[in-house]
């Protein structure tokens, strides 16, 4: 674990850049992580996924699967992959400031 700086704020991250303390997150931090991850400008649809992801994690203690994202986030799977081409669950979790999902599905 190390500390890095996003949007001028110190943030604890793991070796792959996933935040380890969700309470250090805010929208500016999210935008900075997205820019660094090559996602670019976050659209309303990105935010919808990111906020769903964060809420689900904070409520249940684990990140939702792609299946759940596709069914419950309001963004279908095809679009999830357009928004986050390098992996929706992983990248949305990163932007949402929650730990890396460990699920296989």
């Amino acid at each position, binding site marked *: 674990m190390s500390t890095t700086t996003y949007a001028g704020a110190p943030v604890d991250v793991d*070796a792959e850049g996933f935040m380890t303390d969700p309470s250090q997150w805010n929208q500016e931090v999210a935008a900075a992580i997205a820019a660094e991850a090559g996602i670019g400008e976050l659209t309303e649809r990105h935010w919808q996924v990111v906020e769903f992801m964060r809420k689900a994690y904070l409520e249940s203690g684990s990140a939702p699967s792609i*299946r759940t994202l*596709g069914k419950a986030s309001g963004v279908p*799977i095809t679009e999830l992959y357009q928004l986050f081409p*390098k992996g929706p669950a992983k990248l949305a979790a990163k932007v949402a400031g929650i730990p890396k999902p460990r699920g*296989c599905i």
Partner: protein
Amino acid sequence: MSTQPNGGASDAEPIEKVSIIVSKGSLEGVYPGLIMANGARMEGIEANLFFTFFGLDAINRAKHDHVKVATVGNPGLHLATWAGGIPGVSALVTHKLAEEMEKLDIPPIPEFVEMIAESGAGLYACKASVDLFGLGEDDFIDEVDEVITVGEFYGLAAGGQIIFT
């Protein structure tokens, strides 16, 4: 942490493309290939699925919801062969396993295949097997891209890894 049990950062060249062959028609024969393909897409890795022989059942619209665990000739189940052959046992074991999978958020085969197609993976049927079983394109779910020859499969797989299941 110095070790990375779940992959993570590594100096090795990352995998960018996989082509996965599903050749078996039992539940335990189909799922590993689907999980590998879905997992590849989840990591942003390009993925193709090539269904051959009884693996075609996974994309056959009449059969994909009826793929069962092999309860005969499956030592991993630790069930006597005679018991595995009793009518209904395969259906029962499949049903139990499906319940456990649902708890883990693993979708049933039809939904899983659809999900993988929506994730952008290519779905292909093996021409030799399609001809052998007397099947046509209409027998397959809409998500299947094409019936292709083994040569075309190698063309699609070029530049990536091939995984046979």
